[in-house]
């Protein structure tokens, strides 16, 4: 194994771990801020470390500290299976984390004649891996619900299990339709297919090729991650917190974080299968390489504009009412962040200038385009996470029987019909 292979592999693993784990505090914060936005209030924005609020992200770290130092409480009626009771949240957390590992963050990197996958787990059966591993997660919920010896937990676990069974089939069938279209179970091949052009003017994204499969897939992903409007599993107005009722401190936090990782994984799979993954619309990796100097110029032009509006927005919003005497260090925070952002932009501009004038080797182009694709991936991931959050705070919870009817009577026949139509079209075109 060469040094290069080790660097690329380690880089992918670290990136996947960061994107999955560091996303949790950001998503918890985003959830609360977006909820505030929708309900016309502010959400958490006071917690700070030395005056630095970062818009309230620090609140999530404070929450983690609180949960770590909370008392580990075990209900006294749990006689047997205490170990399994503690282990149950971990099953859900680990399965959600592992399911994220086959998502490609950039196109295959070709350096010195060798090709590397930018995936934490470089395998060519990404979709199957995702479906296999993500179905383990519900076992954690079922064990937790049963071992709590509590009627509410039991009901929550039962709902989780039957909801998963009802939506696993449409999920699998819509994935089969996409596999027929892309002729592969490899995420990277799917993204490659989507980098083309459809009908001459549309990007060949999965959502435009297969709108029905995309709709079914997104709905089933909401149900699989137990997010509203499919959160009957923990429906707090009916069964307290479902399977989480008897869990406290970090055991509860594991369930909580597992849900956010599952949401993050669902967003990643949706964008990889239906929204072009790490690619810019209309442009494939070949196009980016052949027009490398224009890509660099585009980065040089777009970057200062985005940063300018970001700083303007920050200066406008990171302030208090004029009647207050002290602003709690907000002006200082704005100043420091402005300097950091401007110097970061200047550094990137300098690097781009160097690339534009000096570069002719393929290594720097490969690194730049890989980083650009990672940035596009993270941007799309955030957009879809915010979509998940907005849907949660907009729609009311479905009733349990409505969910079952939707899964078995509508989504399943639709996805079956979709497979037949897809197969006919694919055979007809070939």
């Amino acid at each position, binding site marked *: 194994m060469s040094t290069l292979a080790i660097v690329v592999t380690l880089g992918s693993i670290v990136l996947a771990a960061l994107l999955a784990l560091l996303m949790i505090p950001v998503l918890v914060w985003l959830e609360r801020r977006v909820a505030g936005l929708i309900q016309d209030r502010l959400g958490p924005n006071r917690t700070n470390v030395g005056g630095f609020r970062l818009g309230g992200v620090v609140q999530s770290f404070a929450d983690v500290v609180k949960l770590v130092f909370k008392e580990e409480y075990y209900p006294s009626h749990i006689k047997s299976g205490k170990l399994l009771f503690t282990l149950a949240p971990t099953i859900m957390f680990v399965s959600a984390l592992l399911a994220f590992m086959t998502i490609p963050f950039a196109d295959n990197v070709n350096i010195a004649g060798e090709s590397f996958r930018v995936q934490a787990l470089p395998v060519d059966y990404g979709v199957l891996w995702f479906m296999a591993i993500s179905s383990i997660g519900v076992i954690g919920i079922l064990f937790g619900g049963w071992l709590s010896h509590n009627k509410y937990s039991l009901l929550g676990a039962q709902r989780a299990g039957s909801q998963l*069974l009802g939506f696993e089939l449409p999920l699998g069938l819509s994935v089969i339709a996409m596999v027929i279209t892309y002729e592969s*179970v490899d995420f990277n091949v799917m993204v490659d297919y989507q980098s083309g052009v459809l009908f001459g003017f549309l990007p060949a994204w999965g959502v435009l090729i297969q709108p029905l499969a995309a709709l079914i897939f997104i709905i089933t992903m909401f149900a699989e991650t137990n997010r509203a409007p499919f959160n009957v599993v923990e429906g707090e107005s009916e069964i307290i917190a479902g399977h989480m009722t008897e869990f406290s401190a970090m055991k509860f936090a594991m369930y909580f974080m597992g849900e956010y990782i599952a949401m993050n994984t669902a967003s990643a799979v949706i964008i990889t299968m239906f929204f072009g993954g790490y690619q810019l619309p209309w442009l494939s990796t070949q196009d980016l390489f052949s027009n490398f100097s224009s890509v660099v110029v585009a980065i040089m032009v777009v970057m200062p504009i985005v940063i300018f509006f970001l700083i303007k927005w920050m200066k406008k919003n990171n302030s208090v009412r004029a009647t207050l005497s002290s602003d709690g260090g907000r002006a200082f925070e704005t100043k420091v962040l402005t300097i950091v952002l401007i110097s970061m932009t200047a550094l990137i501009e300098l690097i781009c200038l160097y690339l534009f004038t000096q570069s002719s080797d393929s290594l720097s182009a490969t690194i730049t385009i890989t980083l650009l694709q990672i940035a596009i991936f993270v941007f799309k991931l955030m957009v879809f996470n915010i979509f998940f959050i907005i849907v949660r705070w907009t729609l009311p919870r479905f009733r349990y029987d409505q969910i079952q009817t939707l899964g078995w009577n509508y989504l399943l026949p639709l996805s079956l019909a979709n497979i037949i139509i897809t197969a006919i079209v694919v055979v007809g075109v070939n």
Partner: protein
Amino acid sequence: MLENSIFFILALFLVGGSIGMISFRQSVFSAISFLLAMIAMSGMFALLHFSFLFLAQILVSVGAVVVMSLLIIVSVNIKSENLPNDKLTLKRFTLSAILISPIVALLFYAINKTDLMFKEVNEEFGSLKLMGVDLFSNWALAFEIISILLLVALVGGIVISKRSSNYESR
């Protein structure tokens, strides 16, 4: 060396899980033993580079069978005092040992007779692509018959569930 040690760890989990599955009194512990055994089994397929069977094992055995049995355990919710009080006595153990001894002897004989030096397979063995080509070229008829059977069962399930919901609304 590394492969051997991984194999022995997996084998330990597989045997332990299988014994636990039949010996635990509470059905939920049997279920987690079964889960352990199935994951260990898929790990063995992964060790053999048989990626198709590895994934199918997790998808079917863990994702469907274990979840289904757990769902039934949760739905029925048997309390431990309601379970039948049958203990593993020495008499039963001896009787069952005598009953299965011919099969054990047969297995022992078969393993002894087998030539344990297998020839190495090529790099592509067990990959999804080869598996698919094999299924659709050599076993196409059986594959299609099974898929039509499953499809009919699926559609029948939907039709039955739709009819019962009509009955309720009447």
